[in-house]
């Protein structure tokens, strides 16, 4: 280990030859670039693409690890930052929403069971549940309670989605233009 450290951070240790998850600074970048639960993952250094993970337990949204290219243009940076921010915003909204749903559903079930005079567990020891028709009251109430919240979310989501797509289009055109135009003299 000490010998490896002496080699310096940039050198690949002999055992990790494939460049898969390497130097600590890559880990640092990963942690900074994608704060939150998704930060454990680090894509291979050679990959020039974004990586998408499994659905989050709370929000059911798939986190994306955005790749930061070496010569990132201002438009690309703006796009990446918007996508990252939208991802975090979405994550917060849906995690909160799903948690609230679960919590309120439990409370509803408990209160209804109490009204009926039943315990929280059935005779077999499993959690007692209400049937779909009894739950219907809860679903209606939850939907109407969160209606305004959803209206605001919808409006923001549509705006962000369209902005991201527009920026993606601009970046794609920029890249195409970069490739097609006559190259300037390369640095020696």
């Amino acid at each position, binding site marked *: 280990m000490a010998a490896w450290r002496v080699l310096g951070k940039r050198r690949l240790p002999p055992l*990790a030859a494939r460049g898969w998850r390497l130097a600590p600074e890559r880990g640092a970048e990963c942690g900074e670039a994608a704060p939150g639960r998704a930060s454990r993952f680090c894509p291979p250094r050679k990959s020039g693409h974004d990586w998408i993970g499994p659905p989050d337990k709370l929000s059911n949204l798939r986190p994306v690890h955005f790749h930061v290219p070496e010569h990132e243009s201002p438009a690309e940076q703006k796009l990446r930052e918007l996508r990252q921010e939208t991802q975090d915003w979405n994550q917060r909204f849906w995690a909160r929403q799903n948690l609230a*749903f679960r919590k309120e559903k439990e409370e509803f079930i408990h209160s209804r069971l109490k009204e009926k005079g039943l315990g929280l567990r059935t005779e077999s020891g499993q959690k007692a549940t209400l049937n779909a028709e009894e739950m219907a009251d809860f679903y209606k109430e939850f939907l109407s309670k969160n209606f305004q919240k959803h209206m605001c979310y919808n409006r923001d989501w549509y705006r962000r*989605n369209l902005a991201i797509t527009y920026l993606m289009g601009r970046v794609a055109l920029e890249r195409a233009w970069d490739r097609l135009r006559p190259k300037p003299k390369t640095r020696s």
Partner: protein
Amino acid sequence: MAASPHTLSSRLLAGGAGGCVWYLERRAAQGSPHRFMHLFRNAGKQWVTFQHFAFLKRMYVTQLNRSLRQQIKPKSEPMTSSFLEKSSSSQAKAEVYEMKPFAPSSLSLPRKPNETKLIELEPASIIEGSVDVGKETKDEKQWKEMKLRVDDLPGILARLSKIKLTALVVSTTSAGFALAPGPFDLSCFLLTSLGTGLASCAANSINQFFEVPFDSNMNRTKNRPLVRGQISPLLAVAFATCCAVPGVALLTWGVNPLTGALGLFNIFLYTCCYTPLKRVSIANTWVGAVVGAIPPVMGWTAATGSLDAGAFLLGGILYSWQFPHFNALSWGLREDYSRGGYCMMSVTHPALCRRVALRHCLALLALSAAAPALGVTTWTFPAIALPINLYISYLGFRFYVDADRKSSRKLFFCSLWHLPLLLLLMLTCKRPADRDGGQPRS
């Protein structure tokens, strides 16, 4: 269970073996991660028990664990990299905390032996980090590179455009075309079908583009391409444009401007009215019913060039059919709709939901009787269609009265075979052209 009616319906809609295979494959794919997790849990438990044994024995067990987990990556990599990653220590802490027999001092174990023995004994690093890395690599395996592969593209685009639903839409358009009076023009028929298919693909793609976070949260839709990151939103919009423009152009210039206008209007109605309205008001169901009714009207106008009573009748039949179909389906999805913020009758106005479904089942009876009156079919049609119309009305009535899962599922599945059969009966009873004019009275 909310997912199953819809997967089943897709199978029926596809009309055969292909759909069956898809359904079975999907269930198989869903089954395998659970088995894998089970194996992994057992492996972890084994490791805990053996932790106190000699060094060599531990090595053997971990090799066994790794083979159970079927890691693809070479042995050395994951082990060393786990120590290089900052997060690994927190992961190790989590792992250690979970396994109760561990003393807190064992936290240092994953690091020390390796520091001394790393060079001498490579597999040493395997042992301490094995479970820790196992969980990490399992999570990491689920991370996919967002790189579009050309081979996957057809499959991705098929799912993006909801190809099975598109096929159903095209078949209703074909039915409208075939039922229209006048000689059957094959080239016109093919152009209409193609144009309608392209328009439907475009509309479905835009719908999925708008609904990514909502689709992620519903069981029925969580495996869509945009949700899984298999395609970028830009590409989805580009695909939709590449379908919409030729589709509408084909309908306008290849068929007639009226059909083209209807196609364009339908795309607009579906993407800009129905999709956003789903989250605002229950009126979305009525708008969606109109969206479903327009394709057969397009088929009729493609054949005749005008909006006759027959076109409205066909549109009316499809419009009425949407209600028992959708209302019954939505009855089982109330939890997902409520959590996701969708305004559906089944959640907000359940009594209305059932009443409307029943009402439109009865309307189908009336419309079938109107078909010969308007000159679309002969009088045989309402007679032979009476049994199936009565049956769906009966199921609609049962759904109205019972208001439970069982009756909703029965009504939904009935609607799946009712429509194709009804259209087929209409085709067989199509009013033949008059001898003198070639045009039946309308």
